[in-house]
């Protein structure tokens, strides 16, 4: 049996209920006490699963059940309060993809910056640069400051950069709800291609059609727990039975 690329064991994370409420130094530094303090709630607890290379996982659940948080744990941009999240190999996170782009710099500089921050070397970026621009269909705007691009172009170039990262794990968090239909379809084909290339997908969406299209296995988060871990159809049926009947 191949070794898992993502191992999540007994993971839990808690948040404050009232943002901007009063804080004191004690809250700040008591990072790993297990009990919940007043004003805090666990987004989820005791979540455990392994993901094997090449699997395509869809995370299902109602709003606020911690789907995006789970994705962020895997991406390494938040840290679990308990349990272990171990990810072997690099991650290409399609989360807030336009976040790293700087308004005042040109598209070219931005591509080098973002791809570089995600671990690509300069030479790798150079090799791929034309493909990135082609995919985003913004060949005429390579030396335009990023702020002058239309919002559609911004998303296109951002998706293009992240999707060119040669990382074994792809994380997708509803970013594909943007852009026009033909570009969206292009992104989907790109994701399918990457899946065919043996990459691992971790997908958060409310769109049942998309989930069934890409994923083979589903994780159902509800009421702070991982309720079901099984084939995506089974997971979606259970979810629908509970909330859409």
């Amino acid at each position, binding site marked *: 049996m191949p070794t898992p690329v993502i191992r999540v064991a007994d993971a839990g994370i808690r948040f404050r209920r009232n943002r901007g409420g009063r804080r004191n130094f004690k809250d*700040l530094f008591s990072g790993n006490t297990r009990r919940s303090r007043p004003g805090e709630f666990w987004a989820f607890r005791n979540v455990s699963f392994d993901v094997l290379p090449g699997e395509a996982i869809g995370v299902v659940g109602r709003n606020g059940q911690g789907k995006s948080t789970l994705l962020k744990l895997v991406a390494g*941009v938040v840290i679990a309060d308990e349990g272990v999240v171990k990810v072997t190999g690099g991650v290409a*996170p399609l*989360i*807030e993809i336009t*976040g790293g782009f700087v308004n005042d710099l040109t598209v070219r500089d931005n591509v*080098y910056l973002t791809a570089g921050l995600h671990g690509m070397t300069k030479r790798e970026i150079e090799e*791929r640069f034309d493909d990135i621009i082609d995919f985003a269909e913004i060949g005429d705007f390579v030396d335009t400051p990023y702020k002058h691009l239309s919002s559609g172009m911004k998303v296109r170039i951002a998706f293009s950069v992240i999707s060119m990262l040669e990382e074994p794990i792809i994380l997708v968090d509803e970013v594909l709800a943007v852009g026009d239909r033909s570009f969206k379809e292009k992104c989907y084909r790109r994701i399918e291609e990457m899946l065919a290339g043996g990459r691992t997908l971790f997908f958060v969406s409310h769109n049942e059609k998309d989930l069934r299209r890409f994923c083979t296995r589903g994780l159902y988060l509800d009421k702070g727990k991982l309720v079901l871990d099984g084939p995506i159809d089974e997971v979606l049926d259970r979810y629908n039975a509970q909330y859409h009947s």
Partner: protein
Amino acid sequence: MFVPVSSDFGVRRTQRSHLTRYRHALWLLTKRDLRVRYSTSALGYVWSILDPLVMAFIYYFVFVVVFQRGGSVGEDPYIVFLLAGLLPWMWFNGAVSDSTRAFIREAKLVRSTSIPRTIWVNRLVLSKGIEYVAALPVLLAFALFTGGSLNWNALLFPLAIVMQAVLTIGIGLIVAPLVVFFRDLERAVKLVLRFLFYASPIVYGFSDLPVELQPLAAFNPLGGIFSLYRSAFFPEQLNWYPVVISAIMSVIFLVVGLWVFKKSERTVLKEL
């Protein structure tokens, strides 16, 4: 027209060490900071020199022309003495006050990239430090122009730069995460910095302080660091007593900073 997806991805990447990736990301963000600063203004580099120069002339006017330096404060040429303290102060001041917004300004990027979080502070110290080093030729030009002289103590410059970097990183690591929770701290830091400007030997020298104040003032780590810088032009400014204390203080700040940062990192990430 897609790039064929190779099947060996991840293999090469894991071979690149963490240190290489850290340096790579740190350098990218530092370069970005500098490029943004210079590409959006016509004068670019000139600004980073003009700012301390104008300040230096203001202080020169106030303290030399108006107050006649009370007789014997600092050294001659005073403008070199002043700049030798003012330029590194700009580095310290700029990096610490920027670090109050280290996370808030880059929240989107912090939320989407999993680079080691200390980079968000270190890049500020590095980019301001590069500006400082780039401004040093101006200091040298003034020294030559006003008939000052450079001596062998200039070899202590790298030591002073390292000490200041350690100190500034330490303070940045304390300030940056705490501001995320206590927004008031942003203004408090600005206020403390303004106080610190006059509490540190910038417009005066360490030895100009009353003798009974000196033991207390030695605990301001900037004092020792600035006296190292100044000794390159004024050998009698070299006073090892505050230097040793400020070296110890700088290391303490760094250790405390790393501890605070590590302890609060998890909560900071949730808060952004």
